[in-house]
């Protein structure tokens, strides 16, 4: 089946509650579906490693739920196998990994390294393509850990950013603890939540305790970052420091994914939902909102997206490919996959009747 994925094709890896699927296309007009991979299992995250354009990783239970969390690896289009070990906490910690939420490739010049964000919230690093994992102690046993509170989806570490300019510069997002940053490869971490609201706390701007939903590098390449939070949308400039709230112009301050344009500065896409108490598109109109100025203004895009659509998009449910013009892909929690090949201006449904979509990841086969 791998032969069917031509070099240069766009590959959209989709994790659903019933297995993973790959959609691939040489022209982004006609798509071919392959899968399911890890059939029947909830595939929380399914990614094509951009470093070689061939290897895929998936986060899913081993076989089915009872056997615990696992990481799968294989070649795109072929069956996947569990790696030798899943991430696990140190003996004596009293903690046990229940689910792998997110997989993040390491630096471009270190193709064996991959990170995993798990529940209960922790970050692990593998230096052998997921066969074995190391516990990032300074974050996983952070002094504040005893007071960490779970979000509605659990106490999960779901966002990992590896700085392409400085691989020792890392960020991690935990619900609902907030954003942490390390500049020394994970040896030390600081909380990075200044300017981010936590409406559910007595102090609306605590040092930590914010419910970050997703982090994404700004395509500027200067270290700027976008954040979608339970309480608003944010941008942080290249020098770090406080976040700037950029929710104004959006229909709500609630949403899950945020996808940044990979090479156009200050450009990002979000899918606002009504709110935490009703996680569906406002007025039942599916819409993707785009900014090209770091959130100073937003434009609503609905061409080709459905009305009377009372569903939502989950945390990993949106991704951008690296093509020109950039393609954007959105999966819904009712099993539809939408694609835009003109940077969000118009959309086409490329799959329906999947199980609820848990993750979407776009890349290019090499």
């Amino acid at each position, binding site marked *: 089946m791998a032969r069917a994925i031509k070099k240069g094709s766009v590959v959209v890896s989709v994790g659903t509650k019933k297995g993973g699927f790959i959609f691939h296309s040489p022209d982004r007009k006609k798509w071919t579906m392959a899968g399911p991979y890890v059939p029947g299992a909830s595939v929380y995250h399914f990614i094509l490693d951009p470093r070689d354009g061939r290897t895929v990783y998936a986060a899913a239970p081993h076989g089915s739920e009872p056997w*615990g969390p696992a990481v799968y690896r294989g070649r795109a289009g072929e069956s996947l196998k569990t790696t030798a070990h899943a991430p*696990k906490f*140190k003996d004596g910690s*009293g903690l*046990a*990994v229940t689910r792998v939420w997110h997989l993040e490739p390491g630096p471009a010049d270190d193709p064996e390294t991959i990170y995993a964000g798990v529940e209960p919230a922790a970050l692990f690093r593998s230096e052998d393509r997921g066969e074995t994992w190391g516990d990032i102690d300074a974050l996983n046993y952070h002094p504040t850990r005893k007071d960490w509170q779970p979000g509605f989806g659990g106490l999960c570490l779901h966002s990992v950013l590896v700085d392409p300019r400085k691989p020792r510069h890392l960020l991690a997002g935990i619900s609902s603890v907030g954003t942490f940053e390390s500049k020394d490869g994970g040896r030390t971490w600081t909380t990075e939540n200044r300017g981010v609201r936590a409406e559910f706390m007595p102090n609306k701007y605590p040092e930590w305790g914010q419910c970050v939903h997703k982090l994404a590098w700004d395509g500027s390449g200067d270290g700027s970052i976008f954040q979608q939070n339970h309480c608003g949308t944010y941008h942080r400039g290249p020098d770090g420091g406080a976040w700037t709230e950029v929710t104004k112009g959006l229909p709500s301050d609630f949403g899950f994914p945020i996808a940044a344009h990979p090479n156009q500065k200050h450009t990002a896409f979000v899918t606002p939902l009504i709110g935490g108490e009703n996680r569906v598109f406002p007025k039942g109109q599916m819409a993707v909102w785009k900014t090209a100025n770091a959130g100073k203004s937003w434009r609503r895009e609905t061409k080709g997206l459905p009305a009377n659509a009372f569903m939502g998009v989950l945390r990993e449910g949106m991704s951008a490919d690296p093509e020109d013009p950039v393609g954007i892909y959105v999966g819904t929690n009712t099993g539809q996959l939408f694609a835009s090949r003109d940077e969000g201006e118009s959309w086409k449904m490329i799959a329906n009747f999947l199980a609820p979509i848990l993750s979407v990841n776009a890349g290019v086969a090499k």
Partner: protein
Amino acid sequence: MRIPPALRSYTGGQDEVVLEASDLNAMLRALESSFPGIRERVVDEAGTRRPYVNVFVNEELVMTPLGEVALMPGDVVHILPSVAGG
């Protein structure tokens, strides 16, 4: 020890292995030394049996901590997922 289908990827397809151990914890460690990675499918890193994974000794369901279950020569241990249905 009888190996369930979901774990035979670790044992090279073997559905049964013979091990020497004085209790169930020791048996899982012996299993792990032969087939790395398999133990963590049955118990998590805190040593707790995973929910919905059942262990039987001579067809009797084990309800106590695994380390408290002594084994005798000839005992047959089954590891099986529970039905967990409704």
